[in-house]
């Protein structure tokens, strides 16, 4: 009798997108359960169905695949089957306790040694303590960990961690494996080994629920495949049909389809032949005389036509046979598969010839293996004697292209070369991103979670809820900058050092302190307006956006305004690492001089206040005082300057909103908030790093990995901002993240907002309507600062 291992009946799962409601929701669910009530039905605001009405059954020896695009509900299904969470409707019955989940994140602790991790994992899977000593040694040997076994896992490479995780799984023999995207990391050899392990497990009668994008494995292993789309089951079918349906959905949405290959199902040791297609015992099938030859019958050459010729000898007639040739090299098996057509073979046999128009292999030695399949049952029927293998050597292509240049890699790809114009696509893409990053951000936002950017060497987090969670996560550190003056700022500190340094400056930015500055800001703005009174055309950045924040900061720090141009040039961090380092050095030298001056004659300014906090037992060291001064200048000047410039550009490009603001000056507050959201001055705040393994958007991030939050994207997240690409000065609510969130939120946010509010109000009152000084507003290309981190203008020509 078939033994059912897993029975999923009409399972749905509801999630909430509102982190602030999680305590309430968890409490309500717990209380309902304590009262014997079923889970609440229906959706509330901010909730969605991650999975709807899924039915699934896995019998012993069955392998079921789950495919779907990101966000389809695969991981939710895995979490439900694992029992990590409970379904909102329906039920999941597991008829075995021997269930093991393999996922990419793993649960290895970086602080513990390899040995301790192995013992922990064995304990989690219920292995008695007495058995763990012997098993630990076996696992360590299998993972090739020797001296490293007693070193903390945090010191392991990603490949070593993957090997260790795999070695542990390989020692467990559950009734049911839950595989959620397999194991990440490791080299090609490791991945092949993992595939081999899974294939052997299935061949040995193991059962599996399998969520993976690897179509090769899905088609090879799965009896049936469930296709999910937006949490809903679309169909359950054989692998090829399901992948085909997946691809139709992908094409509809402009996503890349999955490759489909000819079915080559693995056959289990205990698998009976399907009754629908009974076949005679195939008798003896021998494949021999395998030869791989070039066009002229000699040695095959890279990129040239070739033939695989072999003989099949059969003792009985074989109908509907498919021959397949696998080419392998070393540990990469198969490197390529050449499926044949359906043929019939009568005794004593046939010679089959497979012509390859272009042998896409680099010079070297290869293995070739011929297998025969019954096309109706997809079972491998031969060769029956272990024959069907040969070795062949591919020679160099020869000719004018030169052989030396074509020896590397694995494959020889036939290529038509052209001499193209001098267009650098990377530079072109970078320029396009620099001009308008929002199409890119929209693609990022369409993803359910973060992704790793090799160019940044960091995970990029773009969704509003995930950025918010990241900023509040105590397992995330800001200590990513270790060298230079920035490493001493509060930006690069965690509690308690962060709080200690932040408290030095918070007094300067309280509501009362900023209110006291309002008249000064108004006077400065009026002075700047007086300066352009006689001009019909002027640069808004030069006369307002750069000057007002600069002069406010100079006043706050008690610095002479004559130094502003020099400091402004140093504060521009867009010149690359060398220029930035040089500028940072100049700023440090400058402030070191100012500090010495203030030590001798303290004044009524922020630098003197900071120095007052410094004494042998005081709050801050001299290095920290210096770093805080530099940070205040950089943060207070550059971001507010960008806010003013970006804000004015937005008004000029949206005349209806500009007119609305002029007619309703009381809207200046919400207008500034919308400017901050729509064209945030900071797109990438300083990088964070995970202190321990964390999860963002269902994706595991290893300890030590760098994480970059993209505020520009988060502030256009359609899940939070309806119609996010519309500039609306009356938008409410407007929960943008332009000033960050959590302990590292900008302490000078209120001052920045106040400066923008007063400046825009006074400019509207005194200068009236301004116009973009460009021939065509539609085609006007603003000159953005050449920095990815901040988004601000270098100039903004306007006319009255």
């Amino acid at each position, binding site marked *: 009798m078939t033994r059912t291992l897993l029975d999923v009946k009409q399972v749905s799962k509801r999630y909430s997108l509102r982190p602030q409601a999680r305590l309430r929701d968890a409490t309500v669910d717990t209380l309902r359960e304590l009262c014997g009530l079923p889970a609440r039905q229906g959706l509330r605001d901010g909730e969605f169905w991650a999975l709807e009405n899924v039915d699934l059954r896995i019998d012993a020896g069955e392998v079921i695949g789950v495919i779907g695009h990101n966000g389809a509900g695969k991981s939710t299904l895995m979490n439900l089957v694992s029992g*990590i969470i*409970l379904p909102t409707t329906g039920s999941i019955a597991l008829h075995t306790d021997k269930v093991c989940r393999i996922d990419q994140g793993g649960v290895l602790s970086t602080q513990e040694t390899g040995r301790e991790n192995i013992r922990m994992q064995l304990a989690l899977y219920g292995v008695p303590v007495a058995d763990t000593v012997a098993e630990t040694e076996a696992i360590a040997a299998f993972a090739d960990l020797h001296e490293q076994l007693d070193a903390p896992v945090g010191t392991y490479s990603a490949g070593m961690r993957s090997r260790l995780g795999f070695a542990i799984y390989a020692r467990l023999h559950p009734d049911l494996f839950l595989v959620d995207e397999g194991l990440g990391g490791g080299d090609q050899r490791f991945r092949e080994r993992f595939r081999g392990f899974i294939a*052997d497990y299935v061949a040995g009668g193991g059962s599996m629920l399998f969520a993976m994008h690897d179509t090769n494995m899905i088609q090879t292993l799965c009896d049936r495949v469930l296709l999910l789309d937006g949490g809903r089951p679309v169909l359950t079918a054989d692998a090829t049909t399901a992948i085909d349906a997946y691809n139709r959905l992908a094409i509809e949405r402009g996503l890349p389809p999955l490759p489909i290959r000819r079915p080559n199902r693995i056959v289990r040791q205990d698998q009976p032949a399907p009754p629908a297609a009974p076949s005679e015992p195939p008798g003896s099938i021998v494949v021999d005389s395998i030869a791989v030859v070039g066009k002229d019958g000699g040695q095959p050459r890279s990129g040239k036509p070739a033939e695989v010729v072999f003989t099949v000898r059969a003792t009985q007639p074989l109908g509907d046979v498919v021959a397949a040739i696998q080419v392998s090299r070393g540990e990469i098996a198969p490197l390529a598969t050449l499926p044949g057509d359906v043929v019939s073979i009568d005794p004593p046999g046939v010679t089959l010839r497979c012509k390859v128009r272009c042998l896409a292999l680099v010079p070297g030695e290869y293995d070739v293996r011929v297998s025969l399949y019954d096309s109706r049952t997809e079972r491998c029927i031969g060769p029956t004697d272990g024959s069907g293998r040969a070795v062949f050597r591919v020679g160099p292509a020869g000719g004018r292209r030169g052989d030396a240049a074509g020896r590397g890699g694995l494959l020889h790809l036939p290529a038509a070369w052209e001499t193209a114009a001098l267009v650098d696509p990377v530079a072109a893409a970078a320029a396009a991103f620099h001009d308008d990053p929002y199409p890119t951000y929209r693609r990022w936002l369409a993803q359910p979670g973060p992704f790793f950017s090799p160019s940044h060497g960091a995970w990029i987090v773009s969704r509003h809820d995930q950025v918010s969670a990241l900023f509040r996560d105590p397992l995330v550190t800001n200590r990513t900058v270790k060298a230079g003056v920035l490493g001493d700022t509060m930006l690069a500190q965690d509690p308690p050092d962060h709080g200690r340094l932040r408290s030095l400056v918070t007094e300067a930015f309280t509501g009362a302190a900023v209110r006291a500055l309002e008249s000064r800001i108004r006077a400065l703005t009026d002075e700047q307006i007086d300066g352009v009174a006689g001009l019909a055309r002027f640069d808004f950045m030069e006369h307002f956006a750069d000057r007002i924040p600069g002069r406010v900061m100079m006043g706050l720090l008690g610095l002479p305004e004559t130094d502003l141009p020099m400091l402004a040039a140093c504060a521009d961090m867009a010149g690359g690492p060398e220029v930035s380092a040089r500028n940072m050095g100049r700023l440090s030298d400058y402030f070191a001089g100012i500090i010495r001056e203030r030590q001798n004659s303290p004044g009524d300014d922020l630098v003197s206040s900071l120095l007052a906090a410094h004494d042998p037992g005081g709050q801050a060291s001299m290095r920290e005082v210096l770093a805080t001064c530099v940070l205040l200048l950089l943060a207070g000047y550059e971001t507010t300057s960008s806010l003013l410039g970006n804000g004015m550009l937005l008004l000029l490009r949206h005349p209806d909103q500009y007119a609305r603001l002029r007619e309703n000056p009381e809207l200046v507050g919400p207008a500034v908030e919308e400017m901050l959201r729509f064209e945030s001055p900071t797109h990438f705040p300083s990088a964070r790093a995970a202190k321990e393994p964390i999860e963002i958007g*269902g994706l595991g991030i290893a300890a030590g990995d760098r994480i970059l939050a993209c505020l520009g994207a988060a502030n256009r997240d359609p899940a939070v901002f309806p119609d996010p690409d519309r500039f609306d000065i009356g938008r409410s609510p407007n929960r943008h993240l332009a000033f960050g969130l959590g302990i590292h939120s900008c302490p000078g946010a209120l001052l920045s907002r106040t400066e923008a509010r007063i400046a825009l109000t006074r400019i509207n009152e005194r200068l009236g309507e301004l116009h973009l000084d460009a021939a065509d507003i539609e085609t006007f290309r603003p000159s953005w600062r050449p920095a990815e981190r901040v988004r601000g203008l270098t100039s903004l020509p306007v006319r009255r």
Partner: protein
Amino acid sequence: MADRLSPEADSPQPPAASGAGDLGLAGDLSVAGDPGLAFPGTPVRLHASTSRLRDPGRCLREWARDAAGSPPVAWRLFVRSLIQQYRHSSLGIVLAFAPVVLTALVFTFGRRSHLVAGEIGGVNSAFFGACGMLMGQAFLEAFNATRRLFAGNQALFRRQSLPVEGPLGAILLDLGFRYLIRLAVLALLMALFAVPPAVTLPLAAWGLVGLSLTGAGLGLLVAPPSALQQDINVFSSALPLILFTVTPVFMVPEPESFLGLVHAANPLAWLFEGIRAAAYGAPGSLAAAAIGPLVALLIFVLGWFLCRIARPHVVERMLV
């Protein structure tokens, strides 16, 4: 012969060919040991939208099975906790009783400077304060350890269907370890301050168990919200101050004073006094030391039960 994909010499053997060194998972034992869960047609595990309490029998059986299967996990988590506490600390185990020693020192200097009364509750005030700190520490450590049941193990809870019994067992082992240290410290204090032990001293040890269980039980009751809401942490940082005020940790208020009335109404204060009474014959109710732990056990089991029920609901929100 069946064709195999990518056969490799070093591939692990399939289950059917597993050797003597291969492992079976815990289900081998647990299912066999619980025939009520293993007969055909009855799932071993059922994850449903309906309340688990609708089938009390299954609920209790699963509880018992999780508790029986938790010792290996509890032991490893306990070892991990010890490593995290002591591997990177030069002071190591000293930290476990440092507050008690410091309290004794402060009171001793206070006495010599005439800032503190010579005697409190009929014994040397330094001994009284150190004992109070020892008991207060027992309560607070238990409370904070169980309060962080979910928050402190979220990496595990988010990846595996881990019954709460594993981490809870680790916490109990840790508390047991600290309890033994505390007993030794108590004995040292009595010897140092020449306080003769009462014949009911074993009852004091039992009362100390009750104090830890009370803290652990109350911690379990707030563990689910604590994992999801930071405000609980703010409250917890103020808890020692509240505790030291409403219980006789460092002082014995006048019975008629406001604080005296608070102490009289506070069951935790009864337990503190009961332990002192049992340890060295101070005024207090021995019945509190005897019965208190039983009540604490009830609170603990209630908290344990709540966390079992709340686990999937809390973990679900920790995923978001």
